[in-house]
């Protein structure tokens, strides 16, 4: 079963389908975040031991008025993740090519 699933994912013919599925997931997760902001569910969701969460602390473990401003913006972490990833790849590879990357036998 594992082999079948892995073969399906690895098969180049299915890459289009997988990509579409991935994009839909992205949309769903952003919608979830927007919904969370609109309805502002501070309560723990119904998952194991959800009920035990401390009553006088918010889910972050500190008072709500200290919240980071980014937490208030819809889809903030989507943008942060995307831009962060792009910048990281470009900067690291850039610095690498300009300076850090040497031939493999550099120290020999």
């Amino acid at each position, binding site marked *: 079963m*594992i*082999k079948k699933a*892995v*073969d399906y*994912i*690895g098969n180049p013919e299915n890459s289009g389908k997988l*990509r579409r599925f*991935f994009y839909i997931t*992205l949309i769903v*997760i*952003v919608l*979830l*975040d927007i919904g*969370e902001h609109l309805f502002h*569910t501070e*309560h*723990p*969701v119904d*998952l*194991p*031991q*959800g009920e*035990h*969460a*401390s009553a006088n*602390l918010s*889910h*972050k*473990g*500190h008072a709500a008025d*200290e919240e*980071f401003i980014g*937490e208030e913006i819809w*889809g*903030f*972490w*989507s*943008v*942060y*993740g*995307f831009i*962060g*990833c*792009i910048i*990281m*790849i*470009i*900067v*690291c*590879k850039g610095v*690498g090519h300009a*300076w*850090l*990357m*040497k*031939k*493999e*036998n*550099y*120290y020999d």
Partner: protein
Amino acid sequence: MTNLWINPAFLFILGSFLIPILKGRVKHTFLLLVPAVAFLDVVLMSQGTYGAVQFLGMDLIFGKVDRLSLVFAHVFTLMAFIGVLYSLHVKDDGQHVAAYLYMGSSLGAIFAGDYVTLFLFWEIMAFSSVFLIWYRRTQKAVNAGFRYLLVHIVGGLFLFAGILLRHGEVGSFAFGAISPEGVTLATYLIMIGFCLNAAVPPIHAWLPDAYPEATVTGTIFLSVFTTKVALYALIRAFAGFEILAIIGPIMAVYGVCYAVIENDARRILAYHMVSQLGYMVCGVGMGTEMAINGAIAHAYAYIIYKGLLFMGTGAVLEMTGKSKLNELGGLYKYMPITLLFTVTGGISISGFPLTSGFIGKSMTVEAAESYKIFIFLMLMIASIGTFLSVGLKLPYYIWFNKDSGIKPKEAPLNMKLAMGIAAFICYFLGVYPKFLFDMLPYPVHWEPYTISHFAEVMQLLLFTGLGFLLLLKKLTPEPTLNLDVDWFYRKGSKVFMWVANKPIAIYEEYLGEIYNKWFTNFTLRFSNFLWRIFDVKIIDGIVNDIAGFWKDLGGVARLSQTGLVRNYAFFMLLGGILFITYYLFK
């Protein structure tokens, strides 16, 4: 001593002596039995102080058992079992012995209640672990092993100096929390000693230099113990030191940046260790209950999933002989199970929901949010890099991308089992975090499974995935070597060699003389003595086995028969003499 306490360290250390004698199934059973017994020992252990010994007027405590040492011992013995299972097929007895001594001394350090005991085990760790590198038997491994040893000896000297100075100041060797107020030189020396083993930049380069050169199975052990013992020591002594809270996030980002450009799969993971340790060091520095809990929960989860990742890439190295991403690719048809386990490690380390990263790493990150926002944002950047380099790049270029034409078999059964257990624990902790939370030193007032936490993590990770997808071409692994601060001692060693060749050569003769006279003589007499006992009392077959083992070990040890190691031994001896003299005449 009120009730019976068995130090799990001694189970491993004594057990290591039996390994060369045993054979076949008995040996396999024994190898697995010792960590299993040690694990039970830790689970059943109750808190308290045990094993207090008076030595030269010093109070040595071998068993300081509290919630902090217990949780580390718990995961150490658990991972010891998994690691031994993974390496069960290894024929080299020496590797098993080295691993056992290494694991034993790590546990010894965890339970040490004073600096002398801690230092003793600290040094055994360095000297036993280097064999896990040397046993790879390549010239690269030998050289890397020497650098590893050299760096750790220097770190050990810092620690040693700090311990002595501290004793002069406070008059005791007790190992406990140091107050962030009124720090002295001694405090910093000890901190440097710990930080070196925790791979804190700029004294981190030994880790990505040496770990990827170790044997396939040796790396699993290496990835667990040295750095986590150092983390434990930092938590014990330096909780609340703000400097660590600032270095931590720098480490976290530094490590992932190298992981993004690195080509060797195991070196990616090694660099990534620096990054993950950054989270934990940051947690120690913040010092709040939640942050300390977070650092420990992260360390617990991390030991398992980093072990799993090294096991996955190790299996690929074992089956294909390759670990460089540019030489691999398209393995999904041949090693699907290893892929599944490695990806489990990858998503756990990235902190996906239902995995241990979601409940471990996140706690430190959340603690950082209420501490300082820029630290929090840096840790988030490191999370992006984590998923990018370990969750996506590593599996993609090994198992997918182009077909490299390699057609390996799936990993052997014991490797798959070990990976399976580790993968199971990753999910188990993610689904049932209470198991881990109940072991932490402070009560946990934090609920990982909230919609906002879920949405935050998923957005961050999935949009990182989008960035990866779009810039896939830019990320293509390149067969290069990346400069790091080890440049200073790798290129700088040329200068050192000149000094070593000219002025020191004069002393070298003198040192050699001492070595021959004392050390060699002693070894000869000792082995002579052993030979007599064994010859008289134990049947010949066993003697032959032992001889074979020592011959093997000798082959590896021969690598160390250069002037350098003799010099280290000399300095260690000198240090020991100074140390004892100080106590006799102070």
